[in-house]
């Protein structure tokens, strides 16, 4: 008898702990599945300033909870995704956006790969062109004068 009571207690305790351990984002969700989807996408694109490598959707830091709350509020007030993202960047800096903006300080980030690609293609084309030119040169038959000089050199060897 006693054992059963203890078991029940243990199971209840375990359930309670599991409830506590539920992700913070699960609290107070949007009813509308479309809004829920939008909220989840937005919070996954915003980075927690405190924990650095977690989005605010995953993070349990208090600041992430505050940020999620602000996202919810702005969504209810009818703000667009861009407005919400901008509001966060205005406060916490461009660091919080997992999608860096296209600004002078991020030009190298956005354009760099394409510049590298163009340079790479350029180098390959130049090498191919040079190789072809050399092969063409190799296959040109020697003139009589050249043949005579080559034979001369070989004899001198």
């Amino acid at each position, binding site marked *: 008898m006693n054992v059963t009571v203890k078991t029940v207690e243990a199971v209840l305790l375990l359930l309670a702990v599991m409830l506590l351990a539920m992700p913070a984002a699960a609290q107070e969700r949007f009813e509308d599945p479309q809004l829920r989807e939008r909220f989840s996408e937005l919070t996954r694109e915003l980075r*927690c300033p405190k924990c650095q490598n977690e989005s605010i959707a995953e993070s349990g830091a208090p600041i992430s909870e*505050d940020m999620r709350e602000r996202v919810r509020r702005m969504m209810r007030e009818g703000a667009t995704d861009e407005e919400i993202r901008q509001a966060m*960047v205005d406060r916490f*800096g461009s*660091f919080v956006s997992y999608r860096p903006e296209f600004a002078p300080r991020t030009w190298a980030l956005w354009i760099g790969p394409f510049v590298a690609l163009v340079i790479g293609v350029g180098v390959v084309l130049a090498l191919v062109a040079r190789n072809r030119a050399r092969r063409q040169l190799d296959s040109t038959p020697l003139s009589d004068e050249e043949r005579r000089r080559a034979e001369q050199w070989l004899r001198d060897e």
Partner: protein
Amino acid sequence: MNRIWLFLPLVLAVTLGVVLYWGLGEDPSELDSALVGREVPSFELPMLREAESPARPEMLKGKVQLLNVWATWCAACRVEHPHLNRLAEQGVPIVGLNYKDERDKAVEWLAERGDPYTQVIYDPEGSLGFDLGVYGAPETYLIDAKGIVRHRHVGVVDQDVWESDFEPLYERYRQDG
């Protein structure tokens, strides 16, 4: 083709190495504030000790001063507090922003440890903190006479930080104003 071009890949690799090595020395938890160069956001909050009287955004204008974000739950604030007391003794005006805290505890803390603040804004919900981009306490802002944020430091402001990061700016903006 000029032979010197053969060294180009080496030069590029070394340059990249230097840039990346330099990046290693940066503290990734130190974010540049979006607020530097901009005015302190407006707010409607009470004072900590005088619950009835509202804190006014104008209190952050008129002179160069520090805005220090603190809370009794914040362990590093304990470390920072004596440093703030000393700065206040030296005549540096510091406005406190009590962040996500309980009024009674905060008042008690100041009674126990000394009060370096000229005034303390009470922000239990962290609403001004949010607009400032605060993501942990303590944080300290240098605000010039026009109410514009000139510098932000995340973490404890001790003697070293004060001398290297704050004091030169503090003196400069005091001369400007």
